[in-house]
């Protein structure tokens, strides 16, 4: 179907496309779930709309309300679009070391931005948002890291779409941030197709991001459920960039940098399947396209230069 009543109705039902050139072998195949084909161009449209709808249903979010969210990017953009269509205000708390494109898009949608210090990364944004929520009791914090509607959106949407398009799926690989995608899709696939491997790819940043972190004040999202995961990889910016460029060069897919990290983990499990002589149908999630990262230098120059420029930035 290609006709919709409004932009919000175009959510989900994204394409699953094969990677004939990057797949490790004819019976170990990679499939890309193109989540950039959502209303604002990222997978975050799913949880953002689900969280808004859940809050509307509960009655906590009513006409004229202001939504508050710690977000350094895609969730903020999704919320900003939905908020402007539905008549809500939006305040985003984001670390100051996030790309300029995201700030501009958020502002274009009419969102207000509160900056949190770069040193603290997203942990600091969460802390600042929680403080703001206390000071402004009439604001509604949806809180993607702990809102069950986030994982639920993937349990009800992304998971069933994957299984319906690829009934013999063996692995699902996605980025680990709020953990909503992996927990939601993982629960669905474990229930419907026991034995499916759920693989997390976690971005490994430069030292600045971890620098001031006190080990006793670490952060694990409330949604996180380690029992859903089978493996978890940490992928540095060099490998993420290398794979992002390969995806573009070999398969024509212009993805964001976090997708490169996800592809890296997908290829790692794929190569292991080849070594073990086991067939595999590996689905990996393309969270967004590359447009918002052009200013980071990710797509030009040498890999070493690009990786150096990314150091200290939050790229996933």
């Amino acid at each position, binding site marked *: 179907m290609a006709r919709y009543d409004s932009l919000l109705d175009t959510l989900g039902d994204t394409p699953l496309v094969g990677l004939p050139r990057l797949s490790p072998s004819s019976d170990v195949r990679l499939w890309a779930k193109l989540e950039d084909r959502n209303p604002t161009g990222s997978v975050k449209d799913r949880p953002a709309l689900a969280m808004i709808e859940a809050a509307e249903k509960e009655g906590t979010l009513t006409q004229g309300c202001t939504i508050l969210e710690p977000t350094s990017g895609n969730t903020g953009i999704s919320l900003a679009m939905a908020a402007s269509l539905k008549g809500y205000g939006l305040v985003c708390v984001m670390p100051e070391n996030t790309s300029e494109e995201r700030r501009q898009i958020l502002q274009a949608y009419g969102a207000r931005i509160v900056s949190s210090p770069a040193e603290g990364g*997203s942990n600091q944004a969460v802390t600042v948002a929680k403080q703001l929520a206390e000071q402004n009791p009439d604001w509604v914090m949806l809180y993607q890291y702990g809102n069950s509607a986030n994982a639920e959106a993937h349990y009800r949407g992304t998971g069933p779409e994957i299984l319906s398009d690829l009934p013999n799926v063996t692995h699902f690989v996605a980025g680990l941030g*709020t953990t909503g995608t992996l927990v939601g899709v993982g629960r669905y696939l474990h229930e419907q197709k026991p034995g499916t491997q759920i693989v997390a790819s976690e971005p490994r940043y430069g030292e600045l991001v971890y620098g001031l*972190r006190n080990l006793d004040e670490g952060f694990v999202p409330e949604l996180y459920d*380690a029992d859903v995961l089978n*493996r978890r*990889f940490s992928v540095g910016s060099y490998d993420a960039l290398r794979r992002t460029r390969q995806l573009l060069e070999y398969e024509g897919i212009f993805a964001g940098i976090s997708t490169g990290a996800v592809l890296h983990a997908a290829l790692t499990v794929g190569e292991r399947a080849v070594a073990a002589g086991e067939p595999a149908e590996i689905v990996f999630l393309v969270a967004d396209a590359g447009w918002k990262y052009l200013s980071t230098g990710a797509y030009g120059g040498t890999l070493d230069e690009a990786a150096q420029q990314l150091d200290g930035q*939050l790229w996933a």
Partner: protein
Amino acid sequence: MAVNVSIPTILRTHTGGQKSVEADGSTVAEVINDLDSRHTGLKDRLVKDGALHRFVNVYVNDEDVRFVGGLEASVSDGDSLTILPAVAGGMR
């Protein structure tokens, strides 16, 4: 069996400021014990009640050890072991 261990900034007080150090062992637990014998106090920061501290992640060659045996995960000569604090995902 020599393993290269990368130490996060917050723990470098134990290693005299060194970013990476060598250690021996065939499991993560053995490597941590060996680290502690050379850099006193490190084990207490990493292990609590016989398991990895909730906010500490340890990776062998980029794979989270919690999913491959935890402290008993095997380590081979030439592997790299990375210790990192748990952080929230980036651009969510």
